[in-house]
């Protein structure tokens, strides 16, 4: 086993080195977690304003005022961008991955602690920059989180396309740099710092998911970074990468010969892997939690690993399915469509294996397990609309309708967030040394599962009926007016679901200070983080280097003294 660049023999002293510019992956993980928690509330608040505007377009809200169509589009852009980058990418990977990857492989820290600190603070700067877009002249950009050129490339194409759009791109570029640093660190740590006996095929599935996510990040964020720089050049230096000769409001813009489709190709070359960057860690957590609380080894460990690897592999070959209606060659649609269907296969394998894990188990229903079960349900529901959208011929009707919005919210939004909730309830005791309240956890779960389905399932009906997305109001088109009852229902469901999230926040902060003390292994789980103290010491294992003798999910082993065998238990009990 190699050693990280700086093995800290003793705990750093002083508030700033300990909590602000800390090199400890655990502190950095918690920093990422709170950054994402802040971001998710910002993103959720924006979506609340959008839902209100959709149903009451003329409403004047306290503090916010009247929401104009362009304001709605700014909310939409910022909601999507903040959620995708600063929540879905930040919490599962930066937060939980940072905290638990080193511990789960038996390492004292990440391979490059300084780089780790740098990647968090760079992400933080990115978040500040994107928030700044709200406060500049013209406000935040209105081009959507996908930022299609030429709309995103022309400051005169709409309000918010001036400085706001520059800040938006800059923020994404900063985020890309941070993610590249993080990805390098995760990959190196996984490959080089595993404890003795921790073979690749003994790694918990969470570690596999963070490792594969990091590889996706390394390959995808570089492309987005370059694409973003080209876009900034088109906007500010008069280049024409994405903009042909166009006339906006009767004015000829100074561009010539650029290709709007080039942006789409580059964006989605990042954008599709990004979907898996958001959901893979959730898959890892769901596997870990389902096995732990079913008291049963994960069904088909190797199949799970291969499935994640092939999801990552195919994830880079399907970006064109976002572009069936874009004017791209209709021949290429065949290839992208077949490859997209292929990615459904490993996704189905994972679902079968999750069900197989619970089958003939002995299921305990603590809150993390409820969220993992909810994850499986949402993953199925969100996944099954995929084969509709993967068919170019059905995209003729469904592309850019709420059917798509329902699809990706269920799977990369809500399912991924259920993965994060499962992770939070599962690892909170280890991170903060106390237990979260079970009763309130259950209340939160039931309201959130019912509520998110009530918001996002009706979007499919809306989309089938031709309900276009990114419309600030449904007042101008006759057939859309008839669909308003669905919007009203979704808005009421959103009120309830958003209100329920305050239960979670209260539970989180209350338990942090007042919850009952947690033991070292409250869930009777097997992976290495549960073998060390709660919360773990600065070097994770208190000077001891763990030696791994068993696979990650050895539950209900015949002949074992307890119903679980921890990874570092002596090799006297025979496990597979």
């Amino acid at each position, binding site marked *: 086993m190699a050693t990280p660049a700086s093995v800290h023999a003793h705990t750093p002293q002083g508030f700033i080195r300990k909590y602000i510019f800390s090199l400890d992956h655990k502190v950095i993980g918690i920093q990422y977690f709170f950054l994402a928690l802040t971001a998710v509330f910002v993103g959720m608040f924006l979506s609340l304003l959008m839902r209100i505007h959709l149903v009451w377009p003329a409403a004047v809200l306290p503090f916010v005022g009247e929401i104009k169509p362009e304001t709605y589009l700014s909310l939409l852009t910022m909601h999507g961008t903040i959620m995708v980058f600063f929540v879905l990418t930040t919490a599962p990977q930066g937060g939980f991955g940072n905290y638990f990857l080193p511990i789960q492989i038996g390492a004292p820290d990440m391979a490059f602690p300084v780089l780790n600190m740098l990647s968090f603070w760079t992400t933080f700067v990115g978040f500040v920059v994107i928030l700044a877009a709200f406060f500049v002249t013209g406000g935040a950009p209105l081009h959507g989180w996908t930022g299609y050129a030429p709309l995103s490339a022309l400051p005169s194409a709409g309000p918010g396309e001036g400085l706001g759009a520059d800040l938006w791109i800059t923020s994404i570029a900063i985020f890309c740099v941070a993610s590249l640093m993080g990805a390098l660190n995760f990959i190196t740590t996984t490959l080089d710092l595993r404890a003795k006996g921790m073979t690749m095929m003994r790694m918990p599935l969470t570690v596999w998911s963070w490792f594969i996510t990091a590889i996706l990040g390394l390959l995808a964020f570089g492309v987005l970074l370059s694409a973003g720089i080209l876009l900034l050049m088109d906007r500010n230096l008069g280049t024409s990468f994405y903009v042909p000769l*166009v006339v906006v409001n009767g004015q000829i813009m100074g561009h010539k010969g650029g290709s709007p489709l080039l942006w789409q190709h580059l964006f989605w070359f990042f954008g599709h892997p990004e979907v898996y960057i958001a959901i893979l860690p959730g898959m890892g957590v769901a596997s870990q939690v389902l096995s732990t609380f079913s008291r*049963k*080894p994960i069904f088909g460990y190797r199949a799970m690993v291969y499935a994640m690897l092939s999801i990552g592999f195919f994830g880079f070959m399907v970006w064109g399915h976002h572009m069936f*209606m874009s004017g791209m060659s209709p021949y290429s649609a*065949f290839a992208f469509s077949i490859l997209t269907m292929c990615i459904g296969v490993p996704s189905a394998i994972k679902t079968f294996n999750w069900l197989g894990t619970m089958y003939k188990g*002995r299921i305990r229903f603590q809150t993390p397990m409820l969220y993992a079960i909810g994850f499986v349900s949402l993953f199925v529901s969100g996944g099954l609309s995929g084969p509709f959208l993967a068919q170019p011929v059905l995209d003729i009707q469904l592309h850019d309708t709420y059917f798509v919005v329902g699809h990706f919210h269920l799977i990369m939004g809500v399912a991924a967030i259920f993965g994060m909730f499962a992770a939070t309830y599962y690892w909170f005791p280890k991170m903060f040394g106390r237990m979260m309240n079970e009763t309130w956890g259950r209340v939160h779960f039931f309201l959130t599962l019912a509520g998110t389905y009530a918001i996002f399932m009706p979007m499919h009906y809306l989309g*089938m009926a031709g309900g276009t997305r990114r419309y600030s109001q449904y007042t101008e088109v006759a057939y859309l007016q008839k669909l308003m009852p669905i919007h009203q229902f979704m808005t009421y469901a959103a009120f309830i679901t958003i209100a329920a999230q305050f239960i979670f926040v209260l539970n989180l902060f209350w338990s942090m200070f007042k919850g009952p003390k947690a033991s070292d292994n409250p869930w009777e789980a097997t992976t290495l983080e549960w073998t060390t103290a709660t919360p773990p010491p600065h070097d994770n294992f208190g000077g001891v280097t763990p030696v791994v003798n068993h696979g990650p999910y050895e539950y209900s082993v015949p002949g074992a003294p307890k*119903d679980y065998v921890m990874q570092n238990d002596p090799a006297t009990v025979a496990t597979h």
Partner: protein
Amino acid sequence: MGLALLLLIWLITLASTYFFVAKTWWLPVGASAAAHWIDSQFALTFIIMGIVFLAAQLGLGYIVWRYREGPSSVPASYSHGNTTLEVVWTVLTAILFIGLNLMGSSVWASQRFDAAEAGAVQVEVTGMQFAWYFRYPGPDGKYGATSPKLMDPSAGGEAAVGLNTSDPAAKDDVVTGTMFLPVDREVDVSLRAVDVIHSFFVPSLRFKQDAVPGLNIHMHFKPTAIGEYEIACAELCGLGHYKMHGMVHVVSQEDFDKWLAAREAEKQ
């Protein structure tokens, strides 16, 4: 807890399925030649995915209830999986998904790879913030030249698309804000955008195609029922995206001829 979960998951599943099966909201009635093929591919996908959805969700609810821990429950079985099962469901899923995909491909191919029928009506569709314009080449069958320098959106009509009126081929070009089409005749549309990307979406005609600045995209479709159909822009194009609306009037051949002749007469 197991029972509560089972009830909630089943309730969500059945309620969701109800609205799909009852077709409370469904695809709008199709009015083009492709509608039948698209709708039957949609229905087939819907039935297959619906069965998988019901089986997976109901199964999930059942499993969590059936195998809940209780005083009388047996120890969990010690199993790491079953390779035969893994192979079986991998192969089955692959066949199902890829087969479904191939079945839909012929519709896509016929619409995109074959040229429009001879004698198709020529219409040029131009999108700009935030209006659609339709240009008919007139009796000469040729579109006149347009120029970005001549584009004046505030003037509307010919000026908006930048028609060069000194071009002889432009003399009989008709530019309108509403699309008229004869029923049961193929339409050869060429799609253009002058500023940002727009998308020409007519749900009832099962037609959608982005209009992209710098590209001239040719597509064809055939309306099969007389009626008025709404156009909704389906690509975010700026603050007026939600009101970038238009109408397609599908009329009989005689009415179409009369309408076009009247527009030509207005022009002279």
